[in-house]
């Protein structure tokens, strides 16, 4: 291997880290400054934006709504995607190309377009789902589907599914039992990747949430949008809090995954 050119390589890493971290640091600094308009540095430091944010019941409710609807959509995704992937891989492998096509469909239709379509369909007298979290569950399922299916399918492709299931059958296990005792535990990596990817994507989703539900079931992104006129410092505090909560939840989920 070629010897690393330490200065050149290090500067690439430093530039990359700066591009990633500087906006966050700027937002953090802005969120704890009293005002920052005339100088290079803020005029003063304060936690008043955070105090007022966490005292706002609407923010806490929006955060709770976001987490709930995301977890609901993820649960729906896993309950549908894992058995589907298993059935495709084990019983109907010839359907794999078809599945690969189906899961790409959500990318083909921009969220704004599908939101308008969903509004038309689910705002009639027979089925009225717009303005409720249920329509978000469905819409978020389609957003999470490609990431979930891909992660689980990749994991499944690495398992020797046919031989493992055959061995389990010969040892006396039913397919149902083999699925829960052998297949599912071996999909842990795929499931974790799928959950992390989908969760971080869904919690930041704005278009569906704003168009389909709006303030009737306010998520954190919609709350942030609605608060944009209040104060830049306050909005920065929302962004930093949102970021820290996501990081915290990711760490907790990671720890839980390790324990499992």
């Amino acid at each position: 291997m070629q010897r690393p050119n330490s200065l050149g390589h290090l500067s690439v890493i430093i530039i990359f880290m700066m591009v990633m971290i500087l906006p966050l640091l700027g937002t953090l600094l802005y969120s704890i400054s009293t005002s920052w308009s005339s100088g290079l540095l803020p005029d003063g430091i304060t936690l008043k934006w955070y105090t007022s944010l966490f005292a706002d019941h609407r923010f806490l409710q929006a955060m709770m709504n976001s987490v709930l609807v995301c977890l609901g959509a993820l649960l729906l995704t896993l309950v549908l995607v894992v058995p589907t992937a298993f059935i495709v891989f084990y019983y109907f492998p010839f359907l794999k190309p078809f599945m690969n096509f189906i899961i790409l469909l959500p990318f083909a239709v921009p969220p704004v377009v599908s939101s308008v379509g969903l509004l038309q369909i689910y705002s009639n007298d027979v089925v009225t789902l717009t303005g409720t979290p249920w329509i978000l569950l469905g819409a978020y399922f389609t957003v999470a589907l490609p990431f979930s299916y891909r992660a689980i399918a990749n994991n499944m492709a690495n398992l020797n599914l046919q031989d493992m299931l055959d061995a389990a059958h010969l040892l006396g296990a039913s397919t149902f039992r083999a699925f829960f005792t052998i297949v599912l535990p071996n999909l842990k990596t795929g499931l974790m990747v799928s959950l992390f990817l989908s969760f971080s994507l869904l919690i930041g989703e704005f278009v569906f949430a704003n168009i389909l539900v709006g303030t009737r079931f306010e998520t954190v992104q919609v709350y942030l949008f609605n608060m944009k006129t209040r104060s830049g410092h306050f909005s920065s505090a929302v962004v930093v809090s949102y970021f820290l909560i996501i990081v915290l939840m990711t760490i907790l989920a990671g720890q839980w995954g390790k324990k499992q």
Partner: protein
Amino acid sequence: MSFLRVDGLEKKYDDSFVFSHIHFSLEKGEFVTLLGPSGCGKSTLLRCIAGLTQVDDGQLFIDGVNVTDTPARQRGIAMVFQSYALFPNMTVRENIAFGLKMQKVPPSEQSKRVNEAVELVELGGKEQRYPSELSGGQCQRVALARSLVVRPRILLLDEPLSALDARIRKNLREQLRSIQKELGLTTLFVTHDQEEALTLSDRILLMNNGKIIQNGTAEEIYTEPADAFVVRFIGNYNLLSAEQAHQVLGIQSQKQVAIRPESIYVREEGRQYPEHVRHPVRGEVVDYLLLGNVIRYRIKVSNVELLVDLLNRSSERLFPAGANLELLFNTHEIREVDEENSAIG
């Protein structure tokens, strides 16, 4: 009465047969090998016997009972796969105990039988390891223990040694045979390796194109090949056309003629040969290969190249390329064989 009887099994995908009219039987405690080239249908046949693949026709009897439509998990058959098929989320101990759990064997009995199985395959001390922490040979021993611990009526082995390197394969082969003999287990072994088949088996079923071409002991298969396919597949026979046979041996035959390399002698001055070693011809050494205890010569006789195996006794007996030698043939070992079209069963 045979312990396992396969009666006219047939399997096809779409309109093409994987195998057809398969008839054979296994006695209790017998070690039989299904030998054949890749794609001849032997693994599919094994899966049909295990109940993992449905047959299209024919019947299967175990201990006199028709099990053709019995689900795999109720047949009392265990199988070891080429890919090991261990469960990666379970330790060695959990893998071995899996079948016992499914059979709802009491925990104390489970523990005792797992310990016995671990000892049998010499995996003591590795019970808490995961498959990813084991070598290929160790994984296959776990798979073997997992199959043996449920005390199957029949053990099926689907190319269990193919993924292992030569040294481990040889050791495990010997271990496998000794365990099978010790437990008196009725075993059906699938391989494409003729050396493995010849060394391990009580009997060999030689398959080609979905049919059993020959059914016999290793000795019978090796010395009495049923047709030209067996000749080509087993050993390094010299296979001569009728015309070449006439040219080299002076034999008038309508069929092809096969003769093993070790049945051809290089005449030594002063040595007396039995009556059946005759047809002297002269040939020229093209080149040779040192195969350890045997030297394999390529010798040209009247434009026909013959393989001749001689024991590697000392360097004095090494004939260089271009050497002119007199060859003799053991007439008891000259076989006339049909083209590849015969099938029994």
